[in-house]
């Protein structure tokens, strides 16, 4: 858009009005051109001149005065607009830590190098878990930019910012300018869609690509959980394949379609029931029932309910089951030593072993103190002030020691009562009971020396003054005496005596 000033000079302004260029129109003027005239003519065109523009005009006029034809000079330039910043979501949750090193096939469980920051590769995880009520995002509004200005000083409009784009899915809600979790679970934020899944689904294995898992609700693993990984969940864990020598802790059930191959390192602590095809070489604890299809081999099982291996066998290791055991074959033809205990909670024995020395020690101390204090109390008038104070302290000590004893006995009593209420003193063998199986009940146990064909129900029976282990054939009703090991009921006798004394 050429503009003529005084027909000697041109001012070119582009279509967008972003630049104004000054040049000589045609031949050099013969007469001298005053800078002031040139400046006034350009101003009259409405162009906004700034300091650098003024300087350019001055230089242009000076060149003319020297008889040198100047080239095109820029005398004005537009100011670009700054567009608004779009609204966006600001993350408020903790993102998974980025692994510090690449995993290698030889990687040990935890690398320890002195003076170097290390991280277990097993701890790698890209799962974001959130808790109900957590603030997930702050919704940030668009931020204002500034309009531009063309060479005539007119506004160049900026682009206005859009509001933050997001789509709320399940278990999330907008609360004012925040997005909050309305339930606990895995946060999934993809393509502006936000949702919380109550089930953490691992589509493959739990391996170095996934890392250890700690999830508040249910976890579903399509394939396997590999050696030495840890999975902790507040709900149930369902595994489509195998669990190897992993560490598992669940708040609810554990269901393993494949089986558990603990390799003597696998540890399982389950809040409710376990169902698995098999369990081998693992340490397994379930609060309720354990149901196994094929076999339990060389494992340490502790079960608050019933252990059922209805169509399979229990061989090797030991199994505690509060609610009794049902199994097809118990032990093996190879006579592998196998120990099963029913209606027994191993924690009671552990507590008893821990508390009894303390209880006895306290009782001895109380006895000694009483031997000292009782004569003093009988002759109070002869005591001086210090002796009276000391006697009060000693009396108080006996009360404290006695309180400690009471607390321990109460705990043992509660465990004992639980066993009495929930314990089922019964082992059902539908196939074969093999030799070298230790059959243990609260007051009696035996090391079986006979091979017996089932179906039999094995239980303790009082014969005269003694407890015996007997096997009753479930079809014929015939019973076989399996014997009784000496001195086994000592623990129960002592415990019951202790509780009875405390009651008295």
């Amino acid at each position, binding site marked *: 858009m050429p503009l003529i000033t005084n027909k000697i000079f041109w001012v070119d302004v582009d279509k967008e009005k972003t630049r104004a260029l000054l040049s000589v129109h045609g031949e050099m003027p013969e007469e001298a051109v005053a800078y002031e005239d040139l400046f006034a003519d350009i101003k009259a065109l409405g162009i906004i001149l700034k300091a650098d523009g003024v300087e350019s005009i001055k230089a242009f006029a000076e060149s003319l005065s020297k008889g040198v034809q100047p080239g095109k000079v820029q005398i004005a330039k537009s100011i670009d607009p700054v567009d608004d910043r779009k609204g966006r979501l600001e993350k408020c949750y903790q993102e998974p830590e980025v692994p510090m090193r690449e995993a290698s096939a030889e990687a040990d469980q935890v690398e320890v190098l002195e003076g170097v920051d290390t991280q277990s590769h097993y701890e790698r995880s890209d799962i974001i878990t959130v808790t109900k009520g957590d603030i997930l995002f702050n919704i940030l509004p668009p931020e204002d930019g500034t309009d531009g200005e063309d060479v005539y000083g007119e506004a160049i409009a900026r682009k206005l910012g859009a509001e933050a784009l997001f789509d709320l899915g399940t278990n999330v809600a907008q609360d004012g300018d925040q997005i909050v979790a309305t339930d606990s679970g895995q946060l999934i934020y993809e393509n502006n869609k936000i949702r919380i899944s109550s089930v953490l689904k691992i589509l493959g294995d739990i391996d170095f690509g996934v890392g250890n898992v700690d999830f508040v609700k249910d976890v579903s693993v399509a394939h396997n959980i590999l050696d030495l990984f840890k999975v902790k969940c507040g709900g149930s864990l369902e595994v489509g394949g195998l669990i190897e020598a992993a560490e598992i802790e669940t708040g609810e059930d554990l269901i393993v379609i494949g089986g558990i191959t603990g390799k003597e390192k696998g540890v399982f602590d389950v809040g409710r029931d376990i169902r698995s095809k098999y369990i081998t070489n693992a340490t397994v604890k379930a609060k309720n029932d354990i149901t196994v299809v094929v076999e339990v081999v060389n494992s340490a099982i502790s079960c608050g309910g019933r252990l059922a291996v209805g169509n399979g066998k229990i061989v090797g290791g030991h199994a505690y089951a509060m609610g009794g055991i049902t199994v097809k074959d118990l032990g093996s033809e190879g006579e592998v030593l196998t120990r099963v205990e029913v209606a027994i909670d191993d924690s009671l024995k552990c507590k008893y072993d821990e508390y009894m020395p303390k209880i006895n020690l306290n009782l001895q101390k109380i006895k000694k103190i009483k031997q000292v204090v009782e004569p003093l109390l009988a002759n109070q008038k002869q005591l001086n002030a210090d002796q009276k104070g000391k006697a009060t*302290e000693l009396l108080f000590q006996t009360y404290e020691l006695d309180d400690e004893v009471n607390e321990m006995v109460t705990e043992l009593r509660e465990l004992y009562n639980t066993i009495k209420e929930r314990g089922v003193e019964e082992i059902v063998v539908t196939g074969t009971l093999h030799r070298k199986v230790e059959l243990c009940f609260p007051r009696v146990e035996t090391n079986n020396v006979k091979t017996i064909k089932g179906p039999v129900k094995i239980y303790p029976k009082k014969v005269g003054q003694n407890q015996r282990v007997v096997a009753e054939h479930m079809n014929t009703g015939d019973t076989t005496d399996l014997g009784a090991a000496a001195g086994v009921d000592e623990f129960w006798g002592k415990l019951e005596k202790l509780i009875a004394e405390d009651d008295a």
Partner: protein
Amino acid sequence: MKILLVDDSKTMRNIWKKVVSTFEPDAEIFEAADGLEGLAVFSEQQKIDLALVDWNMPNMNGLEMVTKVRESNKETILIMCTTEAEKPRIIEAIKAGINNYVIKPFTPDALKEKIQETMAKVK
């Protein structure tokens, strides 16, 4: 509830504290090792509900402290825990303003009973 324990024996104060915590688990407990420290607690705190006070203490004994407290404070329940078992001494303490007394040696149960009985009476 604010409870002050005044005894020069820390062991004895601990005994009292444990006894008191069995029936007033939320009580705010203050401790003093003699009568002077006890009086300081009285002046710092607007109100002390119960004070257990030993008789024989250095600097200021329990009887002197009780006498001073009662000059301006009739509300606090004061119980003397003492080895002074003679009647004239007990009467002297009662005249000074104690609400009750426990004679050492005592069992934790006896102390607890005495405190609760006194508190019930005063209420």
